[in-house]
C-alpha cells in the first residue's frame, strides 16, 4: 500500500451545502443536495427496532422548531483509505485518521426520538430544542446548518438500549449516504490535516479532552465502544476528525454532540496554529463523571500522566466541549491540578452555572491551580425566549422540565438552555465578567 497506516495524514474534500431538497435521485450540484427520500429510507430502515422513520429538511432562518433532539452528525464519507468514517460502527475499524474524506460543510444530520421506556435520574434524555429562526436561533447549535432531520420511532417491544444502538447506526449511515452523493466528484477545496514536524522551540501543546460517560443515555463512544471503563489514552486529532468519537449523551441540552467531536473547537484552533505558535502533540482523552472522590482524584492524575509522558509543556483542557456544570467539575478541576503539579501550564475552558442573572457562585468546585480559565458563561444565561413557530419537527409537545406540564411545541417557548448551547457559546465568543 502506498500509504503507511500510521501516517495520520487526512485529506478532507469540502463540498459546501447551501440548500437541500427532495428529488427523484440523490445528487450534489452547486451547493445543493437533492435527496431521494425513498432510497435514503431504504438505506436506513431497521424494521425490527424502528417502526417508522421520518425524514425532514430544515433550513436556517425558517420559522421551524426541532424538538426531542438527541444528536447531530456531520455528513461525511471516506473515499480513499482503508478505514471508514465513524470507525467502529461500520465493518473493520482500524486505523482512522488517514486517507481522504468528503465532507458536506454547512449541513448536519439531526436525530430526534423519544425512548420507549420511561427513565428518570441521571440516565435520562433531557428535552433539547433547536429553533431555526427567531431570537433564540443564534443560541442553538445547528440553526446555521441545512439539516436533514431523522425522526425515529421505536418498534413495539424494543428496549431503550436496542433502540439507542439503532439510533447510532441510523444517524451514521445517513451521514455516509448523504456525503456519498459527492464520492465521484472533485472537491472544490481540499484541506490537509497532518502534524508535520515543527520548530522544536515552539511550546509542545496537548489537548486534554474529558468525555461524558455515565451509562446508557449518557455516553461517548470511542471506535464504536462506550467509554465506561476507559483509562485515559492518547488519540491523534485526525481520529477525532474522522469520527472516532461518537456521542450518545442526551443529558442536559447544552451537551456535546458527534458534530462537536468531529469539528472540535480546540482541535481546529491548535491545528491552525501548529507550526506557527504551537507544536500540537495530540489529544488525551478520558472520561469524567467518575463515581467517587477517590476515582475523581485518580482520574486527574491518570490524564495528566499521559500528557506528561508525551512531553507536553502546555495543556488545553475542556470537558464535554465546555460542559462542566455538574459533579464532573470535580474530575475537571482534579485534571487541572494534576497537570499543573506535573509541570504543565494549563488553560481550561469551562462553563459557569448558578442563577441566570449570575448572582450566585458560579463554580461548584475549584483548585488553586485553576488560575487560567476561559469561560463561556452560564448555559442558560441571558438567552432569549422564543415566539411561536409555524412548523415543528420531531414531536407535538415539549416538557423542558419535569416539574412542569408538557406544552404545545409550536407555542412560545422559554427554556433554560437551547440545544448545544455550550459549544455554541464557545463558537459565538460569549463569556461572562464580574459586574
Amino acid at each position, binding site marked *: 500500500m502506498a500509504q503507511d497506516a500510521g501516517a495520520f495524514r487526512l485529506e478532507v474534500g469540502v463540498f459546501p451545502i447551501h440548500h437541500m431538497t427532495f428529488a427523484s435521485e440523490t445528487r450534489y450540484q452547486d451547493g445543493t443536495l437533492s435527496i431521494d427520500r425513498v432510497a435514503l429510507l431504504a438505506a436506513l430502515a431497521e424494521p425490527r427496532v424502528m417502526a417508522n422513520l421520518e425524514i425532514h429538511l430544515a433550513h436556517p432562518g425558517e420559522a421551524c422548531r426541532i424538538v426531542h433532539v438527541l444528536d447531530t452528525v456531520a455528513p461525511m464519507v471516506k473515499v480513499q483509505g482503508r478505514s471508514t468514517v465513524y470507525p467502529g460502527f461500520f465493518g473493520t475499524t482500524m486505523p482512522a485518521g488517514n486517507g481522504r474524506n468528503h465532507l458536506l460543510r454547512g449541513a448536519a444530520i439531526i436525530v430526534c426520538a423519544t425512548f420507549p421506556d420511561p427513565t428518570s435520574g441521571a440516565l435520562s434524555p433531557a428535552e433539547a430544542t433547536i429553533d431555526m429562526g427567531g431570537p433564540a436561533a443564534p443560541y442553538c447549535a445547528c440553526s446555521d446548518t441545512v439539516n436533514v432531520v431523522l425522526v425515529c420511532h421505536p418498534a413495539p417491544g424494543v428496549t431503550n438500549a436496542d433502540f439507542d444502538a439503532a439510533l447510532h447506526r441510523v444517524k451514521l449511515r445517513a451521514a455516509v449516504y448523504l456525503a456519498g452523493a459527492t464520492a465521484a466528484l472533485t472537491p472544490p477545496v481540499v484541506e490537509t490535516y497532518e502534524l508535520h514536524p515543527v520548530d522544536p522551540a515552539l511550546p509542545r501543546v496537548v489537548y486534554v479532552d474529558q468525555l461524558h460517560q455515565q451509562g446508557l443515555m449518557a455516553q461517548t463512544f470511542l471506535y464504536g465502544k462506550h467509554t465506561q471503563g476507559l483509562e485515559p489514552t492518547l488519540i491523534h486529532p485526525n481520529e477525532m476528525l474522522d469520527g472516532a468519537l461518537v456521542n450518545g449523551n442526551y443529558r442536559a441540552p447544552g451537551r456535546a454532540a458527534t458534530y462537536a467531536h468531529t469539528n472540535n473547537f480546540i482541535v*481546529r484552533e491548535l491545528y491552525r496554529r501548529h507550526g506557527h505558535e504551537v507544536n500540537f502533540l495530540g489529544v488525551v482523552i478520558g472520561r469524567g463523571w467518575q463515581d467517587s472522590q477517590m476515582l475523581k482524584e485518580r482520574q486527574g492524575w491518570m490524564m495528566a500522566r499521559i500528557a506528561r509522558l508525551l512531553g507536553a509543556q502546555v495543556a488545553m483542557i475542556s470537558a464535554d466541549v465546555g460542559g462542566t456544570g455538574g459533579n464532573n467539575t470535580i474530575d475537571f478541576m482534579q485534571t487541572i491540578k494534576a497537570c499543573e503539579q506535573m509541570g504543565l501550564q494549563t488553560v481550561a475552558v469551562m462553563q459557569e452555572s448558578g442563577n441566570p442573572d449570575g448572582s450566585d457562585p458560579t463554580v461548584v468546585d475549584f483548585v488553586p491551580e485553576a488560575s487560567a480559565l476561559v469561560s463561556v458563561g452560564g448555559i442558560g444565561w441571558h438567552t432569549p425566549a422564543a415566539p411561536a413557530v409555524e412548523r415543528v419537527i420531531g414531536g407535538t409537545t415539549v416538557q423542558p422540565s419535569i416539574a412542569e406540564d408538557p406544552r404545545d411545541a409550536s407555542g412560545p417557548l422559554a427554556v433554560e438552555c437551547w440545544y448545544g448551547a455550550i459549544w455554541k457559546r464557545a463558537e459565538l465568543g460569549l463569556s461572562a465578567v464580574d459586574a
Partner: protein
Amino acid sequence: MADVLRVVHYLNAFFGGVGGEAEAHTPVSVHPGALGPGRLLEQALAGQGQVVATLMCGDGYFADQEEAVVEHVQAHWQTLKPDVFIAGPAFRSGRYGLACGRLCLEAERLKIPAVTGMHVENPGSDLYRPEHLYIIATEASAVGMRPALERMAALAIKRGRCQPIGTAAEEGFLSRAVRRTVHTGTPAAIRAVDMALKKWRGEPYISELTVETFEVIPPAPPLSDPSKALVALVTEAGLVRKGNPDRLPAAAATHWASYHVGGMDRLVAGEWDAVHGGYDNTAALQDPNRVVPLDALRELERDGVIGKLLDDVFVTVGNMGSLNAMKRIGAEIAAMLVQRGVQAVVLPAT
C-alpha cells in the same frame, strides 16, 4: 438639569478627626455637611451630589455595639433621607471595613444605594462581597485616598441616578458575586490558546473566571444523649411521593416538600418516585430505603439508640442546586425542625 444627589457619608472617628485614646470608643454621632475626607469626596462629586451629613463612629464602639449603632444609623437615614450612602474608604482597617460593609448592607435593604471602598484583603471585603455590595478596590493605606474617593463618587452618582453600571473592571469595584454575559467577539478556542501562549511566555494574562472561596460551616456540637433525641430525616436526594405531587424539578430546585412517614416501618417501592437528575434512580425506585433509610432509622428507634424519629421527612433536589437557594431551603427546613423540637438531623446524601 438633574437634581443634586443627597449623600450621607460614614467615617470612623479617626478619619473624622477625633484623635488619641478616645477615638476607637466614640459613639455614633451625626454632623451637618462633610467632615475630613468627606470634603475631598464632595469635590469628587463635582456638583452632582452634596454631602448633607456625616455619620461618625469609633471602630471599637461599632464592634462592641454593632446592633445599637445600626439602629441609630437607620434612624438617622429616616431623617436625612439620603439618595446615596457612602462609607469609608476603609483601606485595610479591618474593623472599619466590617462597619462599612454592615452599614452598606443595611442601606441596600432599605433601598438606599450604597458604595464603600476598601482593600481586597480587608476582612470586610470577604464578608460583604458575597452580599453583592459595591466595594471600590482601594490601596492598602490612605495614600490611595484621592483615587478611592474619585471612583467611589463616580459609582455613587451612577447608582444614585439609576444609570447603567459598567463591569467590575471598568468601575473599579471588587467582584461582588454577580456575573454578566458579554460578547467578546472572539471564539473561546482562540481566547484559550492566546491565554495559554501568554502564560507560557510568562506574560500577564487575565483569567476570565476567578474562583471564590466557600464559607466553612462548623459542625454542630455532638448530641449529649441520642437515646432521648428527636431526630429528623432531611435529604436532597429528590425522593418524592409517586407522581411528584409537589413538582420538584430534576435540577436547580428552589423549593422543598415534606412527606408524612408516621406509622411506616419502611418506604414501600411503588409509592415513591426519585426525581433527582444527577444519579441513576433505578436502585432507589427498586427500594427507596436505599436512599432514605427509614427502615434503618426505625430499627434504631426500636432499639432505643435514638429517642424518636420525626414523622415527616423533608426533601429537596440537590442536583445543580444554586448555593443561595440551598442556603434558603436549609434555613427554612431548619426553622421548621427547631419549631418541632428536633435536635438532630440525618442527611442521606447522593
